[in-house]
């Protein structure tokens, strides 16, 4: 990391956007939220919501992952470049899921089983 300082100062677009992270209070609040949501996840699993079971469970999981990403992994306080890299990762995941589903959605269109 020390080598980082003495190199390239020609960074104008992607520099020094607030390197001070969250306060201790924020960490504790996020931690408490995660614990509560873990409890909610296991409680909601005992309630039958029919087809919504999976959506509710996944929504809670995605929300928790986002909290970890933003606060524990400092993305909220990171540079725009960091955010862009993370967005491209998410975009790639959507691409993977969407194109895979494109196959499953269009199967049997030919009227022949599996085609």
């Amino acid at each position, binding site marked *: *990391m020390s*080598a*980082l300082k*003495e*190199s*390239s*100062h*020609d*960074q104008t677009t*992607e520099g020094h956007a607030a390197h001070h992270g969250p306060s201790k209070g924020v960490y504790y609040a996020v931690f408490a939220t995660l614990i509560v949501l873990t409890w909610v996840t296991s409680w909601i699993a005992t309630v039958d919501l029919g087809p919504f079971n999976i959506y509710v469970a996944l929504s809670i999981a995605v929300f928790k992952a986002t909290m970890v990403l933003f606060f524990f992994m400092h993305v909220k306080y990171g540079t725009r*470049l960091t955010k862009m*890299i993370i967005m*491209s*990762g998410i975009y*790639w995941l959507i*691409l*993977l899921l969407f*194109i*895979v589903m*494109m*196959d*499953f*959605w*269009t*199967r*049997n*269109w*030919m009227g022949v089983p*599996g*085609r």
Partner: protein
Amino acid sequence: MITATHPVETKKNYLNAEEGLKSWLLTSDHKRIAILYLISVTFFFALGGMYAALIRLELATPAGDLVESNVYNKFFTMHGVIMVFFFLIPSIPAVLGNFFLPMMIGAKDLAFPKINLLSWYIYMVGGVFTLYVLLSGGVDTGWTFYTPFSTSYSNGYVIAAGLGIFINGFSAILTGLNFIVTVHRMRAPGMTWFRMPLFVWAHYATSMIQILGTPVIAVTLFLLVLERGLHIGFFDPAYGGDPVLYQHLFWFYSHPAVYIMILPSMGVVTEIITTFCSKKPFGYTFIAFSSVAIAVFGFLVWGHHLFVSSQSIYAGLVFSVLSYIVAIPSAIKVFNWTATMYKGSVRLETPMLYAIGFIGLFTVGGLTGLFLASLGMNVHLTDTYFVIAHFHYVMVGGAIMGFMGGIHYWWPKMFGRMYSQVWSKVAAIIIFTGFNLTFFPQFILGYMGMPRRYHAYPAEWQVLNVLSSAGASILGLGYLIAIIYLLYSLKFGAIAPPNPWGATTLEWMTDSPPIAENFEVTPVITQEVYTYSAEEVLHVV
């Protein structure tokens, strides 16, 4: 071109700055880590090559007489797993990229030197898993680990092999991360994005694929392990899964993985052609952005591996069209290289022989890829030796030719010694000849319908198979000669000057071998790319 500021007396360089095994195993110097990688990938290359030899030996006769079919299955699986995951993917980035990417942008090291060392250790742990698999009886699924065979029927060591590749994936991710951060943050003063050598652009694009794609293969193999070990359903219809989902996930990574192998190689070839034609590369921005375009479009074509699975015809059509599109940026590069050579003063030194070989072989490999990307043709050619010949033209004729070219190009810089010019040219020609003799007959065999992954075949195909096996021995001989004169040069080679080829990139502006800090003063770049010389770069400060 030799910098007059450095006296000739023996001075400290990265090789002798510290001594003892510990100084190597705990180093954080990117150049030393590159050497550690060079030794390890060479070991795995030899191991994978041994399996290739066994395969060609079995196929020299039509009868399955050397080994039984299930042992043969293990041969080609171990050959594929070792060559793809433990040689081809790390070879150029982790060796040449590690060594020269920081030097080319005027940095003292990568952004995270300790993570760089960690990635080597992770690679070695993954390698140890694979060696364990190999010593305890092997795995017989093919390097693709297709379900349901891999989850329900194979009795090889699928879980250990999957975990080995899973672990190894993190090594590639960390290397890619390191390169991206280094290119963003560590460029020397005046080194703007468009003054970076094209080798750096190629590695930047490769790193994008590594960090976006590698997690998918890691997760996929992990799901495979979960299904095989714990019967959690992802791919087996009996548990509510879909076996074709496995193929989707596997090829989402494994098609771009081909570009992880070939893009760095293209970067090497661009540098070599620029140097040995004494010209600026034709169409710098086109070459730079075609690397990025390949990285992006390479992610959209994976379904061409699923044309004969139960993938829908409509998805197949889309993937077929997209596969044609990805040929465009590759073709741009080929045209740019030939345009660079046109009217250049071409010097046919050994690295240039490999670069020219690369262009020819990669073009054959790429064009036969278009045959396979067309839906109807693919039905005839799927799982035949045509596919084998195609991807060996890309991976061996492309990636390994680039690796050999790069090793010969930078060897004087890495070790401060010149190798035999005569022997190296002889070896390059032997390798080119042996390669074509090995793989060209396989196109014909495949077209005639010889399936891959069988240890026996009808007698009328023996002539072509014998030609192929003979070519493989010639190819092996070529590599052997190369290893011998390269090792010989380490002790007995002539001392290399800082810039033996008259190249114009930053790594040649410092000593051979470089000092531990790469440069005595931080280079300042005031000239356009491929025009700077040592005097300007190192004396401005």
